[in-house]
């Protein structure tokens, strides 16, 4: 009996010592965290080459402050946001997480799951330098800051291969009407006039560019934001749908499911004449060694030119550990720092969220955006600034189906879109 007891005691001792070796270092790391050194895990979806370069500017700046950056990159915005939400609800939140400038994270704020950044925001005077002020609206809830806008991306661009237009002897189009007029001639030359990747987000993204360029931002605002059915039914929205359908005659049959960067490559290689895509496409041209306004043109279509306020924000989920809060506030302050902003946005190809940032490295296209954004009337909001992801997705489904199903009439689409407008989603 005593032998068994002894054996048991020995085993217990062993187990105990193993546990000790595991937990003592752990408790020490906790102690060391208490010093000035901070650790931060950041969830984001920046995984392509240019995007990686951009996020590592943040990481570098954070590590230069003597801290540790734990990078959790997850491919695809949907997946990354899903992970963030799951981890917050599961009680293991990251220090910081990426979202878009939109209503995506409103629920998290309302449920009290996000850290207020008001302390650092009012101390540093964020309200004075964040530009344009619409970005403040995105982040401010009941007078407190809950997110850090880090950049501005705009959808409003046509990317055009200049060679193709030289070849067929046409000037580079400045509006969708001009593009449509020249498209048959390009088609005759054996070139695809419109490069479009047939994924829902690309289809509805292009639709909104067509819409704002044809009917202007004020009308778009009364439809998307105010859900004004009279404005929706006054005929101009139908003409947008008609133009969109006309444009789609000039795409190729390989379009369904094609990725945006593969589609941009078609314009770069001269297989296609034009793509409607956000300013992140500029990175693809740059990587291919092409020069803005020489090899390719970037055009904001329409008589009135707008720059849309898309972009990214970081939110900081609440954590019981007060040390984490310190790290979160320090990181928020770092992200809006003008030097960090300059480095980050030059790598990302996006516009900074404040005007006092050095943008001397900007190319012709980026300069166009920078000039335009200084004019408050040219600043345009996007549907997802006012609407929930469920609304924009239901809307996008109909647009995508309209593009792909020639039997889906404009009248039917109008009815279905009205259904979404009145759904209260």
């Amino acid at each position: 009996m005593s032998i068994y007891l002894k054996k048991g005691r020995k085993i217990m001792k062993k187990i105990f010592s193993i546990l000790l070796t595991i937990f003592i270092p752990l408790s020490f790391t906790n102690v060391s965290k208490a010093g000035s050194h901070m650790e931060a895990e950041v969830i984001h979806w920046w995984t392509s080459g240019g995007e990686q370069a951009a996020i590592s500017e943040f990481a570098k700046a954070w590590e230069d402050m003597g801290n540790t950056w734990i990078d959790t990159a997850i491919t695809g915005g949907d997946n990354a946001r899903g992970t963030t939400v799951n981890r917050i609800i599961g009680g293991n939140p990251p220090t910081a997480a990426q979202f878009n400038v939109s209503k995506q994270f409103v629920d998290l704020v309302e449920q009290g799951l996000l850290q207020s950044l008001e302390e650092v925001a009012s101390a540093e005077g964020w309200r004075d330098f964040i530009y344009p002020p619409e970005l403040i609206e995105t982040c401010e809830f009941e007078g407190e800051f809950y997110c850090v806008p880090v950049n501005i991306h705009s959808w409003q661009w046509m990317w055009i291969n200049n060679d193709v237009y030289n070849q067929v002897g046409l000037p580079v189009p400045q509006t969708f009407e001009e593009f449509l007029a020249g498209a048959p001639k390009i088609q005759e030359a054996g070139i695809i006039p419109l490069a479009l990747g047939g994924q829902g987000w690309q289809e509805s993204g292009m639709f909104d560019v067509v819409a704002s360029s044809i009917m202007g931002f004020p009308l778009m605002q009364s439809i998307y934001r105010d859900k004004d059915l009279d404005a929706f039914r006054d005929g101009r929205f139908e003409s947008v749908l008609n133009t969109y359908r006309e444009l789609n005659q000039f795409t190729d049959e390989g379009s369904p499911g094609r990725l945006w960067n593969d589609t941009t490559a078609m314009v770069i290689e001269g297989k296609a004449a034009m793509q409607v895509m956000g300013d992140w496409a500029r990175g693809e041209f740059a990587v291919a060694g092409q020069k803005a306004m020489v090899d390719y043109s970037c055009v904001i279509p329409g008589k009135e030119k707008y720059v849309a306020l898309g972009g990214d924000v970081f939110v900081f989920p609440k954590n019981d550990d007060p040390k984490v809060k310190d790290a979160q506030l320090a990181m928020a302050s770092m992200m809006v720092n003008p030097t960090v902003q300059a480095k980050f946005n030059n790598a990302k190809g996006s516009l900074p969220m404040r005007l006092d940032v050095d943008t001397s490295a900007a190319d012709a296209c980026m300069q166009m955006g920078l000039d335009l954004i200084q004019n408050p009337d040219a600043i345009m909001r996007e549907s997802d600034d006012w609407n929930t992801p469920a609304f924009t997705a239901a809307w996008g489904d109909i647009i995508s189906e309209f593009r792909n199903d020639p039997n889906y009439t404009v009248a039917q689409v109008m009815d279905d879109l009205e259904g979404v407008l009145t759904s209260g989603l």
Partner: protein
Amino acid sequence: MPFYRNIAAKIALLPMIVISLTVFVGCIIYSFVYSLTNSKLVPVMNYVGFDQYERLFKQRKWDVAVENIFIYGFVFTIGCLIIGFLLSVLIDQKIRGESLFRTIFLYPYAMSFVVTGLVWKWVLNPTFGLENSMHMWGMTWFELDWLVNRDLAIYAVCIAAVWQGAGFVMVLMLAGLRGIDEDIWKSLSIEGVAKWKSYIFVILPMLRPMVVTAIVLIAAGVVKVYDLILALTSGGPGYATTTPAMYVMENFFSRANLGQAFAASIIMFISVVCILAPWAFYEFYLRNKYANN
């Protein structure tokens, strides 16, 4: 049956039973309760009655998804069974290099659906797949635009799925065929029954357990089809190849529309029960009962 019979086995099964009850039944109840709320990004107890279901049934996309799952289920099940059975019969003809063929036909089954999806995506893509190759070989009349044609895209998905699943059915059937007594074949040949007739009218009914197993396994795969379509078409063109499972996942993750996702998954659950319950009841209960009597 006395409670204490096979008590050890029952105790061993207990953890599984507990997990099934809490995880499966618990989650079903949880899903149902929250399908009655207007939860968006996070589950909140905000009762709205059956609004989510009403909205669900108004969705054109949901109709397409339901139609697709029926087409896919029918074509995939029948396709796998017919092709799988034919392959197994052919291999059963005491051919040379049997194990080689068996490996080749079963190989697709070893792949993940994502790989299958990508392979077929490239094969069927009209701009750089098979159609393009044929055009380059001078056969410009050749057309294969299933994947980008919204009416045919779901059948393209079925082709890829059958390509993957048929080999598995073949192996199951082959095992059954190998279990057929030599004497049956002898008596069939003495009677002078044609070979194809003996396969269809005598052997096939004897393979019934294999067919049932194959159908159960295939059917389980039908309802949860997700990764194949995601890799092959991502639900496109438009949403022509979307399925209920994709609808649920979308609303869960990218659309922050939890209530709607829960409602759709409950409808999926109910329809599976409605289809499978009577059949399972017959197959596993009534038949045994008659067989035992």
